[in-house]
């Protein structure tokens, strides 16, 4: 941990955005062991008082943050005893920011200026994310490739640890750029020959704008729905507390908890690992089966007669109790979700989404969307639906588009015209050009709509959206078998170039695959990925004759709502 660098007591001043991701790699207790006595969030004017020797700023390299830091440092200098200031840039030191600090006259105050190259944060055994919220907007709206550069750096670090990846595939403009940067960076490291046996066989770089459709649809896996309804932040979710109140008799519900219940969700929890990627409709049966198993296990105690048997039973108790707690939590969550999914509005919305995705009536004004606007449903919901319709029709007819836009501006306010412009720039909302709708071709060739979905025992990735097979994942699936050559036509319709690069390996490191051994593909989503897509990839990894296992990396874990929100602009 970097805080080990500096001797003596210290206070850390956090760029607020970093606290979430850092929570995943270092707990407060660990920091305390390194004499971290105080933690603040970075704010203007002066720092709160703290009797420490060192003050460490943990920040992203952003100019506006430098201004705040300078303000902090200057007011601290006036206050009295000299402190040692340090600054840690995450993920990279920036000349621009240091220049700014110099201009503000505080650069000299920092004893250490270091970087903490946290590019890819591990979220699970098979999942890495940069948690860079603005990545999509920066790449596709502002042509700012900073996050692509960080992605490339992150991939170089991965290769340094897990060996050079012999084959790189990609689709999309950003993917091309990242691949170019990687090849360039590799040249910069010539000489330091990587002698690690490669873990990954392939890297697949995918632009989010190759598949704008998937995140717009409502995810229907368990984890996806938790995210859609409550929002998962850095693998934590905050839930309404009522359902989690401990049931005690005679309490009379006096002290119901008022604070949101915070739960961590990852595959370390056995039960969650089992149900997270299932279609929500298949979760109930698993939960009730588990309940039976656990209560049977507790019943075992009556059979324990001898001291030895009792001892054995007791030794299993902690594990059983943990399982029971976990089951109780997820039963409560499932109930909460069920309340939403059984509501009429959820059903209506889903029906419309599915109509759009299967290509029904995408070219005219949809009455449900109209009604949502008239009733002032949340704007994000409306935008998501309108964008979905636009994407499923390769753009809307000018008349339809203008009608929607006018309705939105009149109802939600003129200021949203900036948001609409952003959505148009990102290609989410657009007029149909040349009167041609390519979506049906894409849908049929890639089999994006599957009529026979088995939600309980899925046979195809389309189960994650109860019918719609995520385009991005289909591309990955087709790449591994039979290869992209079979879908050249569709690839040409989708935006951006598709390409293949080879990184030659020394003969000693070339892999000789055992028969039946799976290939491992690292798939990197540039611009974000949804939990449903992750679920679909995990499903492919687990297929017995699939032949490919996936490790997933992304710039941001997201869903349709957080995605649209990142593109919204509020001028006041």
């Amino acid at each position, binding site marked *: 941990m970097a805080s080990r660098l500096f001797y003596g007591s210290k206070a850390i001043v956090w760029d607020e955005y970093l606290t979430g991701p850092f929570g995943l790699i270092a707990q407060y207790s660990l920091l305390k062991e390194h004499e971290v006595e105080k933690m603040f969030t970075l704010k203007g004017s002066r720092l709160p008082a703290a009797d420490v020797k060192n003050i460490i700023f943990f920040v992203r390299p952003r100019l*506006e943050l430098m201004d705040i830091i300078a303000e902090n440092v200057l007011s601290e200098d006036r206050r009295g005893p000299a402190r040692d200031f340090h600054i840690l840039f995450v993920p990279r030191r920036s000349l621009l920011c240091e220049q700014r600090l110099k201009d503000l006259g505080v650069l000299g105050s920092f004893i250490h200026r270091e970087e903490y190259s946290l590019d890819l944060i591990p979220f699970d055994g098979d999942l890495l994310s940069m948690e860079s919220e603005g990545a999509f907007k920066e790449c596709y709206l502002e042509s*700012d490739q900073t996050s692509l550069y960080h992605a490339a750096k992150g991939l170089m670090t991965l290769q340094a640890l897990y060996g050079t990846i012999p084959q790189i595939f990609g689709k999309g403009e950003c993917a091309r750029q990242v691949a170019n940067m990687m090849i360039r960076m590799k040249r910069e490291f010539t000489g330091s020959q990587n002698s690690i046996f490669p873990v990954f066989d392939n890297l697949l770089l995918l632009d989010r704008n190759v598949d704008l459709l998937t995140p717009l649809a409502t995810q229907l896996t368990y984890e996806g729905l938790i995210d859609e309804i409550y929002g998962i932040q850095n693998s934590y979710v905050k839930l309404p507390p009522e359902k989690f109140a401990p049931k005690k008799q005679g309490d009379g519900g006096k002290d119901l908890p008022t604070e949101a219940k915070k739960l961590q969700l990852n595959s370390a929890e056995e039960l969650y690992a089992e149900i997270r990627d299932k279609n929500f409709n298949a979760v109930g049966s698993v939960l009730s089966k588990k309940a039976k198993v656990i209560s049977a296990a507790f019943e075992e105690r009556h059979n324990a007669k001898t001291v030895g048997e009792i001892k054995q039973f007791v030794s299993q108790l902690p594990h059983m109790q943990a399982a029971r707690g976990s089951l109780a939590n997820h039963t409560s969550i499932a109930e909460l979700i069920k309340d939403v999914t059984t509501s009429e509005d959820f059903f209506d919305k889903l029906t419309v989404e599915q109509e759009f995705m299967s290509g029904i009536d995408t070219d005219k004004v949809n009455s449900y969307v109209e009604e949502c606007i008239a009733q002032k449903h949340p704007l994000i919901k409306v935008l998501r639906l309108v964008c979905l319709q636009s994407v499923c029709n390769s753009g809307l007819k000018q008349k339809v588009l203008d009608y929607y836009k006018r309705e939105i501006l*009149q109802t939600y*306010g003129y*200021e949203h015209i900036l948001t609409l412009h952003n959505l148009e720039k990102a290609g989410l909302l657009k007029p149909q050009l040349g009167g041609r709708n390519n979506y049906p071709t894409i849908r049929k060739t890639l089999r994006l709509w599957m009529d026979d979905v088995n939600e309980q025992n899925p046979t195809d990735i389309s189960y994650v959206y109860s019918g719609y097979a995520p385009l991005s994942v289909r591309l990955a699936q087709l790449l591994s078998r039979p290869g992209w050559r079979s879908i050249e036509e569709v690839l040409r319709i989708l935006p951006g170039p598709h390409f293949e690069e080879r990184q030659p390996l020394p003969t000693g490191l070339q892999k000789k695959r055992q028969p039946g051994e799976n290939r491992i593909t690292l798939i990197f989503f540039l611009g974000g990925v949804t939990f449903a897509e992750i679920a679909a990839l995990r499903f492919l990894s687990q297929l017995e004759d699939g032949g490919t296992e996936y490790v997933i990396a992304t710039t941001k874990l997201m869903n349709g709502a957080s995605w649209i929100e990142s593109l919204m602009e509020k001028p006041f």
Partner: protein
Amino acid sequence: MNTGQTCRRVCSGLAWMAGLEGGDTGHGWTGSGGNSLLLPSGSSQAASFGKCFLDRFPPDSFVRMCQDLRVLNAVRDYHIGIPLTYSQYKQLTIQVLLDRLVLRRLYPLAIQICEYLRLPEVQGVSRILAHWACYKVQQKDVSDEDVARAINQKLGDTPGVSYSDIAARAYGCGRTELAIKLLEYEPRSGEQVPLLLKMKRSKLALSKAIESGDTDLVFTVLLHLKNELNRGDFFMTLRNQPMALSLYRQFCKYQELETLKDLYNQDDNHQELGSFHIRASYAAEERIEGRVAALQTAADAFYKAKNEFAAKATEDQMRLLRLQRRLEDELGGRFLDLSLHDTVTTLILGGHNKRAEQLARDFRIPDKRLWWLKLTALADLEDWEELEKFSKSKKSPIGYLPFVEICMKQHNKYEAKKYTSRVGPEQKVKALLLVGDVAQAADVAIEHRNEAELSLVLSHCTGATDGATADKIQRARAQAQKKMEGLEEEPLETLPTEQW
């Protein structure tokens, strides 16, 4: 130790080294001294012989001693003339000895020693080659072209050699062109760029920075360029570098808004200019006139951008702003910055129905949405009388189910029931269930012979009260089943159809 092998290696090494001295003949090196330099002395031969008679003698110290002696022999040679004793040599360390050789420009020997002792490349060969290259760039009589080529030939991609260090040296000697040529061989753009900036080759630095993809580097060069060039030249430079231009725009968005406007103007980017003025209308101006003026500029820009829709919407907004100001003056309360929809709603809530109507007409609010709006507002007011009057004003474009729903939302079953009879057949069951009339809902569903509706009603049948109804449905179902088997009628509907 195989002397023959060592000798051969040395010889070939020397032959190679001959090239290092460039213009020099170098023959003197290989000829007289070369072969004898590293020959083992007599004593070590004796030791080598004696070693064979010792049991379990660890060979390390013997090997090390041989190596040291050979190095010492080499430097003691009269061509070199460093008569070190063994202990002097040990005190000095090999690194210092190498430094001395380098200072005397005895590069080939230094490299030979490094290779012979198998020193790691970064500390050994690479370091010496770098020194050699730095010396080489000082040879003023050789052309830039030749020096650069010679250095690259010798150094190639040797790890640990920094071309930028060598280039910096060349620049230090006033050979800027050579430095630039050398920098071409530098693979790390992070090293190229600062030196190029120092040499005032900012434009080259910019393209190198862009090539690297490192946006921080690009920014650094950009800010440098901004100070160095006049505004016109700076903008022209940006224009040829789209990536730099978009980064600089980002910078301006947060730091220099006025410059951003100039950039858009230069590119005739009217669409973005329009958005720019919209933002300005919200950010800077407090007075309504100022805001309207900013919006007018935005609208003009949108017309130039051929974005008819945005232009019209902006003009509508100007109209709305003026109107809201008037409403505030005349009626009091807050209207500014409400959406059109909310403005009309506020008017209805305030009892200004006439004005609301007028506004809706002026801005052509579609009928359907207007009905929703009025319905919601009147229900909020709990003005049931007015609501009923409204419902009868003409045929509802949104059907009558919303009336039932909104009354129930306000827990007014009595009012809700007034509308159930007018709900269209497709939604009738839903409406009846909403007001709790399960029995009638069942009758309608049976009449419709709609399986989905039947099960919906059935799911609403609770306990004893609806027992009879439930039975009725089951009977109807059984009947339908029989018929189906006989007739194979068209399939029953399972999805709710459109609402109107």
